[in-house]
């Protein structure tokens, strides 16, 4: 419910926001909340409420896309490794370990540094989330691999093979349906992880380009701890992030429970 309201509000940001997210009201920078600016303005005079709506939209739309990409990659690598086993599995797990051992933030910073400079803020945010998706599949792949390996050793797969099921039919009819729960769980887990990673990148100033906001770039205001105490409204993006991430966690628990019930 909370997540639906949040997503709904961000989708209708064009109607709800009192101004564009980039518009600088230069006569009123750092303004306190008022009728004109519900959450005040930032240090360039940009309406915080508008930026929160648009920033949440960016994070809430693109994090699931990145999560879908990483889940597909994880399913492909982990599924192949678990299906074939042997040296292919060992090689795949070495690659997975390699990806897991690389510090994400530094890798993202490096990749970001070699990207073309003349891309619009909209493209830059898509690129950022695509990077997150294409780099964040390794942990999920290990779980998918273990699940596939376990399925390959199960009696019903052995029976299907004995009755002459082709590889593709086996995957389509037995493996994918049984891996669905794992893949869904990995998808839901990845969404908050990517939102938080983008927030970390944003906090380092390396996320979404100006003037486009994201939850991450909005959280940068919290770095200024000295000026926080009299301005609690600066915490609202953090509250939204906590609510969104918590909602995804609850969704994940529910989907896991319902999947368990179905299996039982």
């Amino acid at each position, binding site marked *: 419910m909370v997540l639906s309201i949040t997503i709904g509000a961000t989708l209708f940001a064009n109607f709800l926001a009192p101004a564009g997210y*980039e518009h*600088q009201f*230069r006569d009123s*920078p750092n303004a306190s909340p008022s009728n004109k600016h519900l959450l005040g303005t930032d*240090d*360039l*005079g940009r309406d915080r409420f508008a930026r929160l709506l648009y920033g949440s939209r960016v994070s809430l739309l693109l994090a699931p896309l990145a999560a879908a990409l990483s889940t597909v990659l994880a399913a492909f690598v982990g599924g192949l490794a678990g299906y074939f086993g042997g040296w292919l599995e060992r090689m795949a797990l070495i690659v997975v370990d390699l990806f897991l051992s690389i510090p994400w933030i530094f890798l993202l*910073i490096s990749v*970001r*540094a070699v990207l073309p*400079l*003349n*891309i*619009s*803020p909209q493209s*830059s945010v898509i690129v950022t989330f695509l990077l997150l998706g294409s780099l964040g599949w390794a942990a999920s792949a290990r779980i998918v691999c273990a699940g596939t390996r376990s399925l390959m050793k199960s009696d019903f797969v052995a029976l299907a093979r004995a009755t002459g099921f082709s590889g593709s039919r086996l995957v389509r009819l037995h493996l994918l349906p049984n891996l669905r729960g794992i893949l869904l769980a990995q998808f839901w887990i990845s969404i908050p992880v990517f939102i938080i990673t983008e927030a970390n990148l944003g906090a*380092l*100033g*390396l996320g979404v*380009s*100006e*003037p486009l906001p994201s939850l991450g770039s909005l959280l*940068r205001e919290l*770095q*200024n*701890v*000295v*000026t926080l105490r009299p301005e609690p409204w600066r915490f609202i993006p953090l509250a939204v992030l906590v609510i969104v991430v918590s909602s995804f966690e609850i969704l994940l628990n529910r989907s896991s429970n319902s999947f368990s019930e179905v299996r039982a």
Partner: protein
Amino acid sequence: MKRPLLVYAALVLVSAAMLAQSGGELRFCIPSEPNTFNPLLPQEVSSATIIYLTGGVLARFNRFSQKLEPELATSWKVLDGGKKIRFQLREGLHFSDGTLFSADDVAYTMQKLMDPDLHSPTGDAFRSGEGKVVTNILSPVTIEIIFPAVVANLANLFDTVPMLSSRSPQKDMASLGPFYVAEHKAGTYILLKRNPYYWKKDSSGKQLPYLDAIRLEIELNKEIEALRFSRGDLQMITALQPDIFEKLASQNNAQVQDAGVSTYTEFLWFNQVPASTIPAYKRAWFTSTAFRRAVSEAINRADMARIVFHGHAQPAVGAVSPANKFWFNTKLKPHPYDPDSALRRLRQEGFHFDKGKLTDKSGNEVEFSIITVANNHARESMAAMVQQDLKKIGIKVNVVTLDFHAVIERISETFNYEACLLGLLYSDLDPNGVMNVWLSSEPDHQWNPKQKSPATAWEAEIDRLMRAQASSGDEHLRKQYWDRVQEIAWEQEPFIYLVDKDALVAISPKVKNAHPSALHPQTFWNAEYLALDNGGR
């Protein structure tokens, strides 16, 4: 010029009259572990701070009056038009370990300073021509130093040369300044203690420094530094960020001071390197003076100073900040904010402005990226304001924040960028200190470095003027040359200067005799006179 001197004289008298209490430990932060304790190798703020507080120099450039004053030397005379300098030293001075100071030490210091194997940046300023630097010791307190060619601004350069001891068992760590390095806990602090042999006395004959010690806490985070200052753990902060300044001012206005415009300038430039990967049509824009002038006129510097720096910055005039009293060309004024004039210039150059978009003669939409360093909030905000301002004349700007090393690599090695926004602290006020920026053959001639021959007539003119000022011993002639360079830079705008930041400092009311200066080091330039009320208790 007389008024600041009178103010300074009054401040000195007030300081002298003040019965400052001795003792106590002053604490403030340095941003990192010092790279070196070698007095001839200052590399960054932390080592430069330690060297300033511990090093004894022959003459000191007073950060308040901007005049050179006697220190270890009682007098000096520049001879042969700037090829030779003769120093008369004070008698009976000792290093912090008790070793006697004499002309031998000056000769030893010069020998070490000019040693090519040391690669001292301080020594580079003295390298005017081929050949060795010769020292003639005329007596234990008189020495002549002879250079192979004229060295401009020769006497002032000795402000940055701390004297080493040729005989002390402590070698480079023996100090002639008010303090010496007593303790170093890596990553945590450096403790400087009062030099018991320091030569200077106050007007009442009391030996300086007043303080027992200075503890330099290593802390990079400016927010934490401000919190510690608010709690009373620290007594001073140099180079405050404007938002923290405002916050501290709201707590207690008496503890912060805006010391006026500093020599820290923020600027923007376009990549004009012929070998860069940018498209030819874009390079044509960037090499066009009219395009650069139009961009400059379309940027609202006053808004930038007011919003990003909370009013603690001034619209920049040009290559020299007004804080540099002698060398600043007073005829120049900041470029006015005038988007209409900017559009007129662009139309004259063949650009078309239609439906909010600017296109060049060939129909290319005018769009470029500005790179700047990530996690520098002020620069990102400035870039966002430039983005908004240029949108009004139809230019689309993409702001790209990169980590520091990626920015440096792009602007100095790969040249894979279109425009860059950075800032620079000019700690050397003399034009010789920026030869590396203005000579077209130099690597720091950022818009088009390392040119074999000047790409434009105006760059050739700047080269000629810079070389002429560097080889002249006549200060007024040098000023004429440098004034002309500033005028050319103002007209051509290879660097679009945005704002000159104010020097913002926080000083606890417990600290006595502090007179913050706009020049670095803003808070402790008169460290020997600083005192703590009740010994800091």
